[in-house]
């Protein structure tokens, strides 16, 4: 699976990573190698196999289907204390005390 530097740029944009030129080169090489290895999954016939995204819902007492499977993860719609504002702000790089401050969003 050949990953080009353009592919890397496209994916880096999606992931919000400002790669340097040498990083881009290196990543193209690494990703090609790793994806080449991953191609072996095509040896397996999975046409009639359900995907497994997580195992947690398998062990809930209630074994219904669809979104009912996740009923165990629900709670009453009650307001409970959350993270205090001060705690949430304590690691902020730039704040006016109330909000997080960031550079302006400039439309191109």
């Amino acid at each position, binding site marked *: 699976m050949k990953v080009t530097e353009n592919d890397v740029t*496209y994916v880096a944009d999606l992931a*919000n990573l*400002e790669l340097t030129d040498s990083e881009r080169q290196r990543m193209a090489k690494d990703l090609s190698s790793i994806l080449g290895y991953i191609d072996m999954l095509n040896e*397996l016939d999975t046409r009639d196999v359900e995907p497994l995204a997580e*195992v947690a819902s398998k062990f809930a007492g209630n074994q219904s289907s669809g979104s009912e499977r996740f009923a165990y993860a629900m709670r009453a719609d009650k307001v409970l204390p959350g993270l205090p504002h001060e705690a949430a702000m304590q690691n902020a790089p730039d704040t006016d005390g109330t909000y997080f401050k960031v550079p302006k969003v400039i439309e191109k």
Partner: protein
Amino acid sequence: MNIERMTIEAARDLVARKQTTATTLAESFYKKIEAEDPRIGAYLALSRERAFAKASEIDRLAADGAPLPPLAGVPVGIKDVLMTKGIVTTAGSKILKNFKAPYDCTAVARLEQAGAVILGKLNCDEFAMGSSNENSGYHPVHNPHDLTRVPGGSSGGSAASVAAGMAVATLGSDTGGSIRQPAAFCGVVGLMPTYGRVSRYGLIAFASSLDHIGPFTHTVKDAAIMLGVIAGRDPLDSTSADVPVPDYVAEVGRPVKGMKIGVPDEYFAEGLDAEVRAAVEKSIDDLRSAGCEIVKIKLPSTKYAIPTYYIVATAEASSNLARFDGVRYAYRAEGAATLSEMYRRSRDEGFGAEVKRRILLGTYALSAGYYDAYYLKAQRVRTLLAREFEAAFAQVDAILTPTTPTPAFKLGEKTDNPLEMYLNDIFTVTADLVGIPGISVPCGKTRAGLPIGVQLLGKHFDEGTLFRVASAVEHAAS
């Protein structure tokens, strides 16, 4: 007082019998850390204030003759991917260099409520991504058995600190083998509980369907004690299971006669180091002598586990690490003119190479046009793996394999080739993908003195069986 191989029971006993105080114990461990850690590099930060506050509290209880909790005075270390309120928590990354955790991880809080004294935060591969602790944003960790070698990863600091007597027990995390593999490399016990057995609240997320928190200890019994303290439903983690916590310690030392142990061919193929093979085969013989029936089983999709893992884990990671954008916490690049530039540069400057590689791989696997071929495909292979284990566990009570294909390798040996590094996880990743528990127990050493670990895998929520069989292996190997 020999603290090097001190167990949880021994530590607590000394405090309970007033043969020492929790404060003295903490001081002894800090002295040991000062003496040993400059060579090893296991700790990123020490939490003396918190440690001595807890130790004083335990000492007051002991002086009053009040009943002592199960981990009273026991000095523990915490992997730096776990939040510890008020203490800098970095996940081994420069991007979180000065980040003070605003809350405690549930597992950490439970340990502390049980009396444990938190010594400090342990070094690890950045965001738990790695198999050698060489991806730490700070410094690598050296294997206490041979300082030129890696301790394993990503929980290298957690494993090394127990091995070197710088903590009685530690917490680590396992997503693809990051507890079991370093446990094997460092000659300690490492337990990965069933997915959902231990709350993940407060674990800085790498891959949410694969992450597990678990203990490193000197003995199987200590691992059982630790699990009993941290396991159980947590309303703060909706994936934590509402399954009762049994008495794990009661399983330790129970006879294994008549139990069926599955040995899969696929884990004993070429590429397995000869000395590892010999040590693991000796453990199999020991279990046979103890009355176990050894059953050959097949897990044909084993070789597909690594590619499956590197799609699922990286895809989930690309989503989980999106939160590091420089807005609310963590590193923010200076002088960014626009919001977009701030996001892009903060992330590129703050993350290390391996993290970026995995984010890119995961983003690629999820991107339009590739989602079906990669992510969805990997999820289907995950089902195949799950079915194979289900079929195997219909025949056997536990599965035995080597934990790693080789003993600890040299620092720098595998850093040039990411794929070669990934192959270290070959025996450990399947358990993460299917959510079953696994434990690594030391079963011998190579001629050069490097530890070898044997892995036992169990059915979902059947850690009791694991402790029972593991203690038989441990007993025979001692």
